């Protein structure tokens, strides 16, 4: 054998050794400690080098570590979850490349345990699907009401595709679609199912399905010239007194007036109700009764700048104008107490003159974290003063 051949063989052997070392599970790796190093990544990339070192160790683990790694996703920050997820990607990719099986039984047990986070279970589901092409057909039908948003979305999408194949006069398909309408939480999916039902002659009350608040009291207009109204605390932000009158834009007298909407998407069009104004601020107020004390998400749409107060506390503020009017484009986590709760919305219109920049409307619904509407009763506002 020539010396050059010996070198090549040595080189190959060396590379194989390196490959084996790299692929070998890190013996006795303390997964919790490694995950903690991912969680320690701070703002603006602080701690990235240490996280990268921890990632390298995690990605060398064997497939037996997958359940523990998946479970770690339950309690990680969004950034740490991405570190962890990509380590799981690396592990499973290496196993697949080596034609080694993933621990499918353990993964399926993990998937079925709804105490784990939706993200972690969805990832377990993906790994199962890679190992078993039949997994979606086998698993998704039981997940229509899954607590994980993505799994539920997938389950509804699969069932919807099947139902849509049925003839238009199929009563079974209509019944399935009605069931899916109750199961779906993602707004575009809800709308898609509603359209399919309507094509089959079934009217859908989208307002109720989404749980939009349709009865409000409005106070407007206040001044927003040069955007100054955004920071100005007008009387409604100090105290809501439905019987009070205050001085508004251009010295006009502003009083609270009731307003309701029949729009299927729950929108209050301020251009129609208040008038087509520029540089103006409108307030909308609603009092609702919650059946219990609970965390909620106030989900709102507004293409104008928006602030949301819940029970007198600011829970959301976004000073942007005319970008979109999508479902649930603003999501404000908040807490409702049992009984009466108040929602105050501040919507600021700017001075843009373009045709696409005239929208001045809003819609609001209150849901849980999955998007299920909270069963609220909109209270008849009395004239008494109450905190915001």
């Amino acid at each position, binding site marked *: 054998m020539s010396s050059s051949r010996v070198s090549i063989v040595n080189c190959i052997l060396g590379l194989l050794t390196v490959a084996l070392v790299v692929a070998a599970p890190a013996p006795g790796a303390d997964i919790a400690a490694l995950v903690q190093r991912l969680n320690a*990544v701070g*703002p*603006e*990339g*602080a701690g*990235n*080098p240490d*996280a*990268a070192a921890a*990632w*390298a160790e995690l*990605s060398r683990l064997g497939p037996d570590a997958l359940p523990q790694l998946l479970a770690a996703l339950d309690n990680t920050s*969004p*950034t740490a*979850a*991405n*570190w962890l*997820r*990509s*380590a799981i*990607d*690396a592990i499973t*990719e290496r196993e697949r490349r080596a034609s080694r099986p993933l621990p499918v039984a353990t993964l399926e047990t993990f998937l079925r345990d709804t105490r784990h986070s939706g*993200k972690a279970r969805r990832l377990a589901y993906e790994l199962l699907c890679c190992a078993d092409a039949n997994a979606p057909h086998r698993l998704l039908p039981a997940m229509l009401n899954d607590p994980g*948003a*993505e799994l539920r*979305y997938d389950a509804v999408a699969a069932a919807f595709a099947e139902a849509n194949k049925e003839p238009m006069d199929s009563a079974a398909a209509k019944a399935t679609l009605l069931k899916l309408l109750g199961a779906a939480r*993602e707004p575009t999916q809800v709308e898609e199912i509603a359209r399919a039902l309507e094509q089959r002659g079934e009217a859908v009350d989208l307002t109720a399905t989404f749980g939009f608040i349709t009865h409000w009291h409005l106070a407007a207009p206040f001044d927003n010239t040069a955007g100054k109204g955004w920071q100005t605390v007008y009387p409604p932000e100090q105290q809501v007194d439905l019987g009070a009158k205050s001085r508004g834009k251009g010295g006009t007298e502003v009083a609270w007036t009731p307003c309701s909407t029949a729009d299927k998407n729950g929108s209050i069009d301020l251009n129609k109700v208040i008038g087509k104004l520029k540089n103006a601020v409108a307030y909308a107020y609603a009092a609702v009764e919650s059946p219990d004390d609970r965390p909620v998400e106030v989900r709102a749409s507004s293409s104008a700048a928006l602030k949301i107060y819940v029970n007198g506390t600011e829970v959301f503020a*976004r*000073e*942007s*104008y005319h*970008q*979109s009017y*999508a479902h649930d*484009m603003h999501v404000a986590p908040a807490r409702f107490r049992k009984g009466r709760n108040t929602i105050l919305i501040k919507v600021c219109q700017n001075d843009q003159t373009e045709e696409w920049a005239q929208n001045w409307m809003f819609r609001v619904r209150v849901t849980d974290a999955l998007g299920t509407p909270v069963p609220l009763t909109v209270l008849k506002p009395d004239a008494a003063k109450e905190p915001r």
Partner: protein
Amino acid sequence: MKRLLAFGLAVSAGVAPARATDWPQFRGPNLVGVSTETGLPERWGPGENVRWTADLPGRGLSCPVVVGDRVFVTANSGMAQTRLHVLCFDVESGQRLWERQFWATGQTLCHPKTCMAAPTPAAAGRFLYALFGSGDLAALDVDGNLRWLRSLAADYPRMTNHVGRGASPVLADDVLIVPMENEGESYLLGIDTATGRNRWKARRPAELCYTTPTLTRRDCRAELLVQSPRELTAYDPATGAKLWSFDGEQLSEIPSPVVAGDLVLAAARGMLALRPKGAGSAEIVWTTPKLSTAAPTPLVDGGRVYTVNASDILVCGDAATGKELWRLRLKGPFTASPVLAGGKLFLVNEGGVTAVVRLGEMSEIVATNDLKEPMLATPAVARGCLFQRSDAHLFCIGRKPS
């Protein structure tokens, strides 16, 4: 010689040097859209000069980037576009070598025409930097090992964009330049490529903007050019120090600025040419309505500037004077920017039809090639091939190796 010159320009401009056959970022080596590759086919389609096609897991307007024997692509998928993908393919076979997924940590709402995989990744040497419209930024090595991650939405929660982000990061030596202009907090970051930490952060106008910064060299120093609707600013890419700025005209927010000699050409109502003067300002050297451009970034080569206007007309002008030289009607509409290789422009329209235009005094369309899939991404040119991506596929267009 041309390759040597390109390499020299790259080094001298502060751009991370790429091999001549690489296409490491938006509009390729030196961010100019020009490749030294030759021998690209003029005609392709099913069964003809498509070397391979690879499936993609989701949508994307980001361009493929090619480094060495690997092609990298980003995509997004899933409920509300919350799945972000970085994929690596073998350049010869199209085999998927690895994929990494991330969950979007920022907002994913956007105009239906765009998606979260709109910014093009930047690559240098063994490393790749992938930015998504959600503000998620991942640094990986070419084998898929994660080096660092940033959630810009978590770092700067007041940034707001419901239309979509399209500006791409660019590399200036060991600094990754990340533009983030929107209606909320807007900024330009200079990020240490080794650690992912900020080297510097410059405040930018709070206005939607999709332009990708470009790099040049002036008076023996690197210059980073950033265009916003109300301002075009030159920075020192190493420190973020402002060198000069221009704010006298309404500028375009989609096409990126380009460099022609000592001039900076900026899309405005038409096009204007700027030259910095003293006291940190710049003067207009020429302006013309005839070289207007819609979405595609203009291309400069050989003293000429090429634009594609809103009427889908390719217009050639003299870069030194702005004088129109010729125009050629194409079939649009166009979002992708033109690229140049082997004396031909390749212009991909939104329907996936690429017009191949031979340049000269009498320029002509020599072929149109229909891949029959919507395409908004600018193609990459590397290793004798053109790489095109749709929402569903990555195509390698090239002659079969003899």
